[in-house]
């Protein structure tokens, strides 16, 4: 039996940190587009069903437009889709799953969708599902606790059908750390204790919450998000995939990682030690972004120092990159350090004694650290610009 394991679709995510409105919409739309790609993977791999281990929606109160778009995309997937609510789209009264509008859209557009809101076994023709839904943002108790109740995973039950649990939460330190600028706020993780589950009671645990693809045990995997929604944390984090899992009762599942992401979320850092490195910076960035900057988001960190003129040039370059990329998230710690020549131009002006004197004093202040130095460097740039304009 093959199933497709996915999670953390985060549909309706606002991408509020993206300043450009059109690009925000592009990112939002891409999350819906991803569902079509997931449907295609399922069909290609003959997966019998798609299991979504929580956080299909980014919020428990997404807009109707998001609901409709999601139901439409799920309907197009063409196979049964089972979803549990995660911490972002938790269940419970008043949640998105409780809305009449959702039920109606789901009935009309996605008859293949089943939302699993209760912790009780669902016995299907070929498989038994053990959903562990989150009914609130932060469950104080382990959502898999009910599986440990006597008789739930009894060997004698359900014939030889493979058993799959759908779980959303943090396992052994893996979980969505909600420090991303896009998130509405962090909080306590929903902790899942897999060690306390019986060794052979379940054949596969479809985990959600951690956005990278991650094998916890041979039978317990985080699928990760199918389309990145934040800059990944560390090189080990491998988001942008779905898992095609071949499960059988009593067998170790065979897991295939299938990439689905369209946008690239890249980190880029550069240290300026000389004004001449500006060209190298531009070349490296160009090489990393490649031919299609319209699908790339870059988190850039700049350090070092540049002369006044070079700083002005850098600003021009960054402006261009910000326009090209889906997003340029810039952390610019490169300081303005006038070159000796620039300093001479300002301080050695026999004809303009006043400017010379002011520039000399600013140069003195600019060599200090801290706020005073920053202001002085900025003042030097302004004085430089004023003299250039004259």
């Amino acid at each position, binding site marked *: 039996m093959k199933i497709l394991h996915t999670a953390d679709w985060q549909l*309706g*995510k*606002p991408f*509020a*940190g993206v*300043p450009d409105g059109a690009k925000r919409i592009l990112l939002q739309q891409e999350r819906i587009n991803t569902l079509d790609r997931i449907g295609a993977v399922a069909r290609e791999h003959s997966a019998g069903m798609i299991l979504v281990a929580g956080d299909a929606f*980014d*919020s*428990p*109160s*997404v*807009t*109707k437009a*998001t609901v409709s778009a999601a139901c439409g995309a799920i309907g197009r997937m063409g196979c049964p889709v089972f979803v549990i609510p995660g911490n972002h789209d*938790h269940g*419970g*009264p*008043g*949640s*998105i799953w*409780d*809305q*009449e*509008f959702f039920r109606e859209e789901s009935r009309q557009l996605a008859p293949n969708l089943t939302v699993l809101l209760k912790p009780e076994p669902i016995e299907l023709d070929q498989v038994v599902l053990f959903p562990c839904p989150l*009914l*609130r*943002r932060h469950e104080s108790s382990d959502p898999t606790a009910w599986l440990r109740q006597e008789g739930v995973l009894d060997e004698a039950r359900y014939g030889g059908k493979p058993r799959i649990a759908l779980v959303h939460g943090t396992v052994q330190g893996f979980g969505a750390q909600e420090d991303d*600028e*896009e*998130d*509405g706020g962090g909080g306590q993780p929903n902790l899942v204790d897999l060690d306390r589950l019986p060794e052979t009671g379940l054949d596969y645990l479809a985990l959600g919450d951690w956005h990278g693809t991650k094998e916890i045990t041979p039978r317990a995997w985080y699928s990760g998000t199918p389309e990145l929604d934040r800059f990944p944390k560390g090189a080990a984090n491998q988001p942008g995939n779905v898992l095609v899992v071949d499960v059988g009762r009593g067998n170790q599942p065979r897991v295939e990682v299938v990439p689905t992401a369209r946008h690239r979320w890249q980190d880029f850092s550069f240290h300026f030690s000389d004004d001449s490195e500006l060209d190298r910076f531009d070349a490296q960035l160009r090489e990393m972004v490649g031919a299609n900057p319209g699908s790339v988001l870059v988190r850039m960190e700049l350090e070092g120092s540049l002369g006044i003129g070079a700083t002005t040039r850098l600003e021009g370059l960054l402006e261009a990159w910000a326009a090209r990329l889906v997003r340029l998230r810039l952390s610019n710690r490169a300081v303005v350090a006038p070159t000796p020549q620039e300093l001479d131009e300002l301080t050695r002006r026999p*004809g*303009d*004694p*006043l*400017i010379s*004197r*002011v520039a000399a*004093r*600013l140069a003195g*202040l600019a060599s200090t650290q801290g706020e005073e130095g*920053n*202001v*002085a460097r*900025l*003042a030097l*740039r*302004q*004085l430089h610009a*004023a*003299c250039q304009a*004259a």
Partner: protein
Amino acid sequence: MRIKSVKVRNYRVIGDWVVELDDSMTLLAGPNEAGKSTLIEALHRGLFLKASGTNAVIQKMASTQHLGGPPEVELAFQVGNRSYRLAKTFKQVGSTSLADDVGNQLRGPAAEEKLANILGVEEAANANTATAQWAHLWVWQGKSGVDPTSHATSQINRLLDQLPREGGAAVMQSPLDTRVAGEFSQKHSELFTAVGLPRAGSFLQRAMSTHEAATQAREVAEGALNRQRETIADSLAASQEIANLNGVIQRLEEEQRQVGASLETVASLRQAEQNQQAAAADSARQHEELLQADNNIRRIRGEIQEQQQLQEPLVAEDLRLKAVKAGAEEEVQSTEAAHNDAVAATRQARLRQELAVAHHTLFEKQSLRDALQARHGSVHAIRLRVANLERELARLPSITPAKLRRVQELLGDLESARAGLNAMAAGIELLAADQDVQLDGTALGVGQTRILVEPTDLRVGPSVHLRIRPGGGTTLAEAKSKEQEIRTDLRDLLDELGVASPEAAARDCAAAQQLVDEIRTERARLEGLDGDSIDGQLASSENDLLAAQTDVQQRGGLLAEGVPLPTDITEALSLKATASTALRTAEAEESRAKSARDAAIGALRVAVQSLDSHGRNMQQGDAKLNSLLGQLNLLLGMHPADDARTIRLQELRVQKDNDARELAATREQLARLQPELLEQDAGRLERSIGQRHQERNRAENRLAEARGGLRRDGSSTDPQAEFASAKAREGSALDQLNQAQARAQAVKLLHQLFDEEKRTLSEQFTNPFAERITGYLQCLFGPDVRAQVQLDGNRFQGLRMLRPGRGDAAIDFESLSAGTREQLAAAVRLAMAEVLARGHDGCLPVIFDDAFANSDPERVSLLHRMLDLAARRGLQIIVLTCNPSDYAGLGARTVQLGQRVT
């Protein structure tokens, strides 16, 4: 440039003046309104006003007193080595000529242009601008206290040309300097207000507003998100509570059903208990009633037997008591008769005793009456004698011894009065007379003697009239009157006594006294015989005797039998004793008989009482016995006979015991069920279920409300997404704000640094200028005084004076006293003139028109030093004053004005 002389004609009050000026110092002296200021004005017009002018201007200059033609001014001055002569005639079309000492002569505009060139000014366009020329050198009257730095500013370029030469290395800011500094100053003032706050409309203020608005929007979105989360939490809590309550209600309702079933059992048991209790009570009552009747029958029978036994001895006692009573009655009768006899005997004895007493009394009365009759005869004889004596006394006059003493006293008094009178009187005796002598009209013969006791007129002949006054004065008359008075009293008293003389009075009085004594003696005897009451006593004794006789007769009649009569008192006394003894014996006998009778009566009363009491007892016993028999008969009539009753009693006892056992069993069942607790349980459960239902309703309402709040509609947005967007916008606004603040701080820093550096530069220029001013001020205020002035861009300002010992702070020009202001102003003008003179030929004229009006004479004398220093440094000083004596020490050439120079 030095002005050598000035000639003025037809200029206001001046007709035609020529004044020669000293190269160094000139004092133009003259009284007020002499024309000093007019002369100086004419000199200024000559230098700076174009000769051709409007009518109005010319009119003001034209002379009103001297109608010799248009105003004219001629000046001789020297510049360097060259002398010039300037002549101007002011008219609508005036004339100007300027000639030098090497033969050059210019006229008209060329002359004006050349002149302006020499003076270093722009050609004046009109009279007003002309007046403002050389204002720094020209202290017009009344303007001496004005801050001269504005004049310095008007000469800024010339000063700045000269000042670096004074200071040495100073450099001047370039136009670019000025422009860039101005640019940042402009930016700064666009960004900040005067007090350093961000200015409205500036990019900084806009960034702050944007950030503030973004923060507020984020707070609103955060609030909405939190409310949504709270609502979700509320709905979860409410549905959880509903589930809990459903479980609780189910449990409580099951409990309620169990309690209901138990209560039904209790109800049926209570009904059974009620029935059984009635039956048990009935059987117990029947048994009790019959048992009671049986007991009563037995008891009454016993009582009847008992009563009958009690009645038997009572009959015998009754007979005995009756016999006792009869015996007592007989005894009473016999003692009664004996007593009556004793009473009669006592009465006879008492009558005899009383008769004997009466006889004894009768003899006593007779004896008394006989004694009284004898005393009565003696009394009668004495009374006859007294009556005779009293008749004799009544015939004598009534002269008491007291009256007789009075007569004797008066006789003595009369003798004394006569003797006194004779002692005081004068005696007159006519011894010889040849003329008629009369005394008080009475003739007095020769040898005749007369006693005079009062003033007496003595006439001797017709011509001699004498008055003789006896001695003693008025006392003589009084003595005479007294003697007369006593004689009258004596006569009156004798008349009253009815005697002829005092001697007769004494004789009658003695006879009366003897009679009185005899009468008193007789009366004493009478009194000894009780004479006054003897008649009464005798009458009373007679009555007593009669009464005693009557009493004896009456008592004798009372006696039944005759008794012996006594013949005398002794016999009577013996009879009386015998009778008394007999009476006492009879009385004792009577007392004994009475006691015996009373005892018999008492015994009879006791016997009767005993019999009555016993009779009543017997009657009570009979009544009780009859009552018991009645009761017994009644009971025997109501209930079965003795055997049948015994069987019935047994049956009823068995029935009663059975009923009681059943009832006890039922009650125990009930007690085990604890009905009171069951009823409390029912109430409690009902209440509790009601409360849980209410709680569930409330929870359902809360859930419905929360669901309603969470229901999505078409217009609603995602609060979480909204919050994320608002937060991102706030972050972006904060970035913008930080950048704006950094930019603004940079502008501020630039502005500040430009300001500071400009000041430093300006000081390099102004220091030599300030030092010049200080040099002049030291003439006035001593070596420690300092002047300060600043150059700000193209403006001098901040003129201050620092005087150690007068406070550490430099004092603003405007804050100085009026006198010090004009002195400091003069020093500044002199310093300016000195600096500017370098641009000329090293000399410039400085004119002070009444410029030290506010300075005291002492300070004015110090001013001489300052002006002298200026002159020595090459300036041409011209001072106008109306008090030339104040400037006597100046050492200036003095020109007295007001003396017309032709």
